[in-house]
Each structure stands twice: as C-alpha cells, then as structure tokens.
C-alpha cells in the first residue's frame, strides 16, 4: 500500500490518568489522516458536496498495539483500498516517528449518499474517476 502520511504530536489533554493517549483520540487522528489523503484527490467533504454527495462513516475499527505518551510525535498513514461495494474504505496506521513502532491500525467504511440522502449503489462520473484515482495510487508500492 502506498500511504499518505502526516505528523501530529500527542498533546497533554490527549492522555489519560495512566499517561497513555486516550483511545478515542485515535479516531480524531484517523480523521486527520483521511483529510490529508482525500485532499490529494479532490475528495474533501466540501468537494464531495460540490459533486452532489456526502459520505458518512458506517463502520470503524481500531486495533491498539502500543500506547502513545504525551509529547510523542506520531505518523498517521492513510490509504484507500478498492471497495467490494459502492463505498469508501480507508486504512490507517499510526506509528511512533522515533523508531517507527506501530501504535494502532484501523479502518473506516463510508457509504455514499446524494444530497437528498439517497444511498447510491454504483459509482459513476466524476466521483468514480476521483475515487478510482485514489485507490489506484494507494495500490502502488
């Protein structure tokens, strides 16, 4: 998978009483990673709306491998895979910048709705073109 990467630093308000990054913040980091990926392919939320679509998340998984601590610099890697259904599937890995240890791994699934909230079952037109470009890019080495 070819990833789009971005860095974040774990803030004081993101760690819990046990000095580990709180599990819920990983979802926010996934979101930041997804934004970086979608930006490259003109698929940001407002650009989707311009095309006539919205893409709510219907499924999210996260496996926690190692805790992050306050001040750690993390790398958020995001990629997209070819979906078996008319959906958007993003993959995530979060690593420690120093040493590259894997902290967490996850996935989100988004369905595609028209502005009047009708779910689409087939990708067509400009939306299909942009999603295909993103998936093909990510499928590279």
């Amino acid at each position, binding site marked *: 998978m070819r990833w789009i990467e971005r860095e974040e630093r774990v803030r004081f308000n993101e760690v819990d009483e046990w000095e580990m990054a709180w599990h819920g913040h990983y979802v926010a980091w996934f979101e930041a990673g997804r934004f970086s990926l979608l930006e490259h392919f003109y698929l940001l939320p407002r650009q989707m709306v311009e095309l006539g679509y919205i893409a709510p998340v*219907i499924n999210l998984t996260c496996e926690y491998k190692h805790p992050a601590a306050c001040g750690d610099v993390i790398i958020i890697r995001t990629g997209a895979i070819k979906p*078996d259904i*008319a959906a958007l599937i993003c993959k995530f890995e979060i690593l420690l910048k120093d040493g590259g240890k894997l902290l967490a791994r996850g996935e989100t699934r988004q*369905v595609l709705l028209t502005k009047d909230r009708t*779910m689409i*079952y*087939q990708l067509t037109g400009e939306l299909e073109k942009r999603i295909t470009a993103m998936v093909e890019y990510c499928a590279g080495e």
Partner: protein
Amino acid sequence: MKDIVNNTAELCEYLKGLVIDTLRLDDVTKEEIENDAPLFGEGLGLDSIDALELVVALEKAFDVVIEDENVGKTAFASIVTLAAFIQAKYKDRE
C-alpha cells in the same frame, strides 16, 4: 442462470439462499423467509447497508445493476418483487 430466472419458484428459492449467504444470516433458514414478507425493516430486519451488499451479490450472480436506494426500495420489497425485478431485467435484454 437463465433457466433459474425463467422459473419463478426456483428463482425465489435461489434468492433466499443468496440473501442468507451474502448477509451471513446463520440463524435464518430458507423456509423462514416468506416470499412476500418485507425484507427490510419489520420483515427480515435488513437495513440499507445490507442492501448495498445484496446489490453486489446480485450483480455477480445475475449481471443486473441496481443504481441506487430508490430503485432498491422497489426491488428489495420482498423475495417476490426481487424475482420480478430480475426477470424484467432479463426480458429487457432479449
């Protein structure tokens, strides 16, 4: 596949199996799915995400395209309407 499509009773049986397999409804048997009972909501209790998976399975099995939820609502009303939908698509092709 054309032989199955032409035989409504056989097609309905096939579709029940397809629904069970695609949506991994392990605790449901073909006999429990009534031909004219609603598949979504009150009937079998399927949701809009299940529909999306069914669309892909139907496309693979019958090479029929269901464009969106609006078309899906009619097609997925029950096993009988789904069978009729597929039969109509086959008829269009002839």
